[in-house]
């Protein structure tokens, strides 16, 4: 009896032994991942975290984002469908023709970048406040957030105001569009005014690429300049005051316009706020890919083949070289089909464009082997040779591969990659000056101070001064100076030309003065109100 009992016990013990190493620990071990449990603990890590507030701005140099929707809907730039390339479901054509639909992916990219930036600022504000970091850093974050809300206000108008990271309720916007837009305008204004005394007054390299008082004032200038469009009430005097605050900071116009956009433009005395890019450290500025032709890699010895997308609308290009619109010294310029040079105004700012016959690095003419042959639907006017002709044939379906002058504003690097190293200019001194001039002119059309400012810009550009200012030449001068700097759409709406027709665009209505809120966002958040008539 005892024997079997002992035996049974020993069996039971053996059985337990089998289960003894039973381990039930299910905690994760992290190797290549950092989570909120083990990151943001030292000061160095916190500054690295703050860097994201600025890197979020790198979306501005990307294709299919904020810059693209604004520029392609304006009369400056267009992307034509070149046969089988660039149709992409019609999203680019609808921007040019002002036939926006809420399911256009570009709008969602812009919305995502904007709110990604806002979220980052909110989160950092929350985390840094509890850590007791200096007020100046907090002020910088609020200023960056105000810049994001400015873009949201400009593009979408009535957007939800999300300013508290701890508030996890579903964000909503106003039911009435204008009420909502005014609310956002007031927020941006109040934020910038509130942080102004806390921001640094320095404009040196220690504040390069970061928000300081000058940048906040420049942003205020742009905000007030468009106040009538945003809120219905103009604020011309406030525009002048904010501009004066910037002028007092010590900026000056560069002698050479294109130096502001050089590969290394850190030395510009005119750039107030930039987004720094670098081909190694901070990629994403891809205009070299977006605008140049497939064959242009031979011209600049690029390491990647460009995409042949963005081209300049001919009417806009002509505003530079047409002596009736832009009086100045006459010389050889490329117009129309660029077969041979014609005579037109030689404006220094023609450095904004890459136009005319193209050459390889070895001096021979660049060829585009994919050119449209004689039997194709839209034959290339000069055959295999690559020649950017200001004249373009059609937007769809067979736009010329070489059609349209291309963007040359930012200097292209020989041997460059698909990421440019030039720093992207967000706020520039010339813009502030012209804003002041316009505000003065709006208050008093004969104001000599306004004319003087505009003429200083024109003199720098190497063209003749105006005798007097009117809506047309002021509007056109802003266009020529600020090409591709995200101002044209605002100018067109302000001066009332947004609904007009140009190239392939027909006359359109006021619905399109604002972009639709992306459909994906409306679907994901039922308390969002869509913009009127979308």
């Amino acid at each position: 009896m005892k024997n079997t009992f002992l035996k049974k016990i020993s069996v039971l013990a053996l059985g337990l032994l089998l289960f003894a190493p039973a381990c039930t620990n299910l905690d994760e071990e992290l190797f290549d991942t950092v989570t909120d449990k083990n990151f943001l603990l030292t000061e160095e890590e916190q500054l690295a975290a703050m860097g994201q507030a600025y890197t979020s701005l790198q979306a501005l140099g990307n294709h299919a984002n904020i810059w693209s929707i604004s520029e392609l809907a304006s009369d400056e730039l267009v992307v034509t469908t070149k046969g089988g390339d660039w149709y992409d479901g019609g999203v680019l054509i609808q921007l040019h023709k002002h036939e926006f639909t809420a399911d256009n992916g570009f709008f969602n990219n812009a919305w995502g970048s904007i709110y990604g930036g806002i979220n980052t600022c909110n989160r950092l504000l929350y985390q840094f406040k509890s850590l007791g970091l200096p007020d100046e850093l907090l002020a910088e974050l609020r200023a960056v957030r105000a810049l994001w809300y400015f873009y949201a206000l400009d593009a979408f108008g009535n957007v939800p105001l999300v300013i508290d990271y701890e508030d996890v309720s579903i964000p909503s916007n106003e039911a009435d569009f204008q009420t909502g837009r005014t609310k956002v305008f007031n927020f941006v204004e109040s934020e910038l005014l509130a942080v102004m005394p806390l921001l640094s007054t320095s404009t040196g390299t220690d504040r390069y690429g970061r928000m300081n008082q000058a940048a906040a004032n420049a942003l205020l200038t742009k905000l007030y300049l468009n106040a009538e469009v945003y809120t219905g009430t103009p604020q011309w005097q406030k525009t002048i005051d904010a501009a004066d605050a910037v002028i007092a900071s010590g900026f000056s116009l560069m002698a050479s316009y294109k130096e502001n956009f050089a590969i290394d433009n850190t030395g510009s005395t005119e750039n107030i706020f930039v987004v720094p890019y670098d081909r190694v450290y901070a990629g994403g500025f891809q205009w070299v890919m977006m605008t140049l032709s497939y064959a242009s890699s031979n011209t600049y010895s690029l390491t990647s083949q460009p995409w042949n997308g963005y081209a300049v609308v001919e009417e806009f290009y002509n505003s530079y070289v047409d002596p009736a619109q832009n009086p100045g010294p006459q010389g050889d310029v490329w117009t129309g089909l660029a077969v041979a040079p014609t005579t037109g105004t030689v404006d220094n700012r023609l450095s904004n464009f890459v136009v005319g016959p193209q050459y390889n690095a070895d001096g021979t003419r660049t060829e585009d082997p994919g050119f449209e042959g004689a039997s194709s639907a839209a034959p290339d006017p000069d055959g295999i040779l690559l020649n950017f002709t200001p004249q373009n044939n059609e937007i769809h379906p067979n736009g010329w591969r070489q059609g349209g002058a291309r963007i040359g504003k930012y200097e292209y690097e020989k041997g460059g990659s698909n990421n440019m190293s030039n720093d992207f200019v967000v706020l520039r001194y010339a813009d502030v000056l012209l804003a002041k001039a316009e505000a003065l002119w709006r208050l008093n059309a004969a104001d000599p101070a306004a004319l003087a400012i505009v003429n200083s810009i024109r003199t720098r550009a190497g063209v003749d001064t105006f005798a007097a200012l009117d809506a047309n030449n002021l509007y056109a001068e802003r266009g020529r100076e600020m090409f591709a700097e995200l101002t044209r759409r605002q100018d067109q709406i302000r001066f009332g030309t947004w609904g007009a027709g140009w190239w392939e665009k027909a006359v359109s209505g006021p619905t399109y003065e604002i972009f639709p809120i992306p459909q994906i966002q409306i679907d994901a958040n039922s308390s969002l109100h869509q913009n009127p008539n979308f």
Partner: protein
Amino acid sequence: MKKYLLVMLSVLSLSFLMAQERTVTGKVTDAETGEGIPGANVLEKGTTNGAITDLDGNFRLAVSDGATLAFTFVGFVTQEIAIGNRSVIDVAMEQDVQSLSEVVVIGYGVQDKKEITSSVASVKSEDFNKGMVNNPAQLIQGKVAGLTITRPGGDPNGNYTIRLRGVTTVGANAEPLIIIDGVIGGSLSTVDPNDIASIDVLKDGSASAIYGTRGSSGVILVTTKSGKAGKSVVDYNGTVSFDNVARTMKFMTADEYRQVPGMVDLGSDTDWLEQVTQTGVSQIHNISMSGGSGSTTYRASVNVRDVGGIQINTGFSQLNARFNLTQKAMNDRATFSMNLATTTKDASYGFTDVFRYAVLSNPTLPVMFDPTVAGLSDVGGYAERDIFDYWNPVSIANQSINDGKDMRLLGSLRAEYDFSDVVDGLRGTISYSQQRESDMRGQYFMKTAKFQSANLAGGLGGIAQRATEARYNQLFESMLNYDQSFGNTDLALLGGYSYQEFFTEGFGMRGAGFITDAFTYNRIQEAQQFNRGEGSVWSYANSSRLVAFFGRANLNIGGTYFLSASVRQEGSTKFGENNKWGLFPAVSAGVNITNLVNIGGVESLKLRAGWGRTGATPNDSYLSFLRYQGVGSAYVDGSWKPAYGPSSNPNPDLAWETKDELDFGLDFGVMGGKITGTVDWYQRVTSDMLLYVNVPVPPNLVGQTLKNIGELKNTGFELSVNWNVIQTSDFSYTTSVNFSTFSTTIINLDDEGGVLYRANMGSPGQNDTELVRVKEGEKLGQLWGPVMEGVDANGVPIFKDLSGDNSYCNCDDDRTVIGQGLPDFTIGWNNSLTFKSFDFNMFFRSAIGHDLLNSYRGFYENTESTTVSSWNIVNTAAYDPNIKKAVVNSSHVEKASYFKLDNATFGYTLPSKEGAAIRRARIYVSSQNPFVLTNYTGIDPEIRYVDSGENGGQQDPLSPGIERRNTYFTTRTFSMGINLGF
């Protein structure tokens, strides 16, 4: 008690026998071998008078006149013979193929086929697919109803997609759990097809629930061959095979191309396909030795494969060695077994781009640069064109290197002890196994190559990349089994613990700009890019763990009623904090109807039903956290500093996907056991599927969160029938068919809307065109697009207005379902004939009812000016030169139903002499994929269960039915081989 009864009866019968009895003698032999069968029963029918045959098969029995003798033996067909007035009766007994006590491998053990109450299929090595088989998955392709194994195209280095019962999950791992000799999660790359004895598939939830969080997609159990005591044998198998291109995409010849308006004539007539393909010659050698004596058995094998691919410069060579050893000890109470297997593989992968640009190439383009032809550039001597999306395919094949070396090691040790002397019927087992895999990859693109811009990269040209990954997992399991009989009830209990740990790590680097091509990727530190701070270097590591407790009870009541219940409590580190553990129960029951009721003509009939819950885990670890990652660099104080930001929203409620499955089945045997089969009907509901859903950007940090949110329902029917038509000693013919159909419906996708559009068509010009719609309440597999009605004067296709507003808006209101990517049903049909020493096997496979979207046609079957001037044009029967615009639409979706001869083998077994040195010799010839009957004009009509994306590299199970431009060409194989046994 029994003994007394027998004596009494025999005394009684003796008294009867006194009346009219005589003695009958005879010999019972095995009809096939002629050898005597010892231990067979000879019974006088209607009495209990019987005898047992002796060692030589002889018997002697005293019977009465006019008696009928019944001869029975396990595994043989019962014979009844009236003695008439004979006194010597010799009987040759036929093997009863069907009622051989078939044992099926189930989770954590084996079970008698008669007792199985779940849906389990078993394929033995003699039924495997024949011919040149390099991947174990290929062995059972088409052999199991409901198990689809596909590999679109014929890439020898490509992987098979295995799906059981259609689509069960879209977020988590959809491949079945592979178990090799008890090692859970083993990789099929550690097993050579020649070493596999059987593959068992646990098809329904009640069978796989014992594997818990990984059993949702089914479980495949692979059992390798082991040694047999007493018989020492050496086997050698050798095969040589030749692979050729079977199907490609139909593009124009040079003459046809010259007729197309807008064409660019570059003067030559190049057969690009011929330039980049070759006949792939392969050899396989396998030698195995097994044997043992007394308490030790072993099997060792070495497999060598040298495979040539059909793309030039591709193929692989592989060496696999395996050693299985089993040893008993402690008076045969303890059994120790050890399995060791290792594989090393050296491969040259090639690029799918070579095939893609070969079919796309302008047929008048010369291969090598010709200065007299305009519009060409000379890169490395090859002719290149400066147009969008084109590279000379011969240059890619010859000027790029894409190598790899893989190493696999699987070792397991198992100890089993029989405690029957202490507690009757108790057994304990401990096992430990480790699997180690390491992959090394190297790529080099030459300075003289245009592909990947290698001639410009890094300034000097030349791009090198080197990367390696290592994966380890170790498994520890311990179990107790208790088997006992009470009266006519058998009980089998099982309880156990399982612990498995996984670790993956890897690193790599890529740099460009070399002074010479001579190093290829072997001196990557000289890349000029590194000196400029460019180029890239990376490393990573992650781990996870699984812990489980499991138990099962099986009941067999009188061989008539069967009951099985199991449960597994499993936890994984991959889940969120709040949901680490899950419970997975199952229950199933069966009734052996022929034991209760005698139905004429029906030998066996078993009805069974089962219900089980299984789970599925996400592929990656750390998904439930708020994770940070580097988001570029910010310019602070005059220099660049790294910036960090959140990359995922936290979800502490992240849990496994749950699948509940109900299965009803019938196993039958009719016509004297000649026809056997099973029928299954099942319904499975997968809930809490892991899906990324869009979330509002404020207040969340990131625009998408991984949530348990989807629900999927899958209903299906399976039938498999095996028929031994004729079975004589000279001729036999067996045929078997399996048929399966399923239908998957999306019940729930997300919190609102419930529609997803996925699968981008791609460039040129068709970015932002979604090809697939996934909608709540609808079946999975919908291809989405506009319906083409005609062509207008400008060559633009006219699309039908479906929204009723008399115009075609380029939006979803005017698009509709234009195809279904999943099939109506699939069939596998096997025929085996033997005639004397010849054997012939033919296996057909068919899938009916699925569609495929032919991407090549969607881009290149038109006369658009850029398309014509840049590339070749697709030339199928649907080619219409009036169409001058490439827009994917309903005309590019084709019915892809197919019927193919998958493999056919013809063999001859040389006559063998008793006691000869060569015990067995067989030679054979085999052909794989000799013909396919289909109306599909694309490369491969095989079902696409996942979409690889417009650039490859993805596996999206929500978008079936698209043939992408990176599809490898299909191959036709012819092989010859020899099997020798010593």
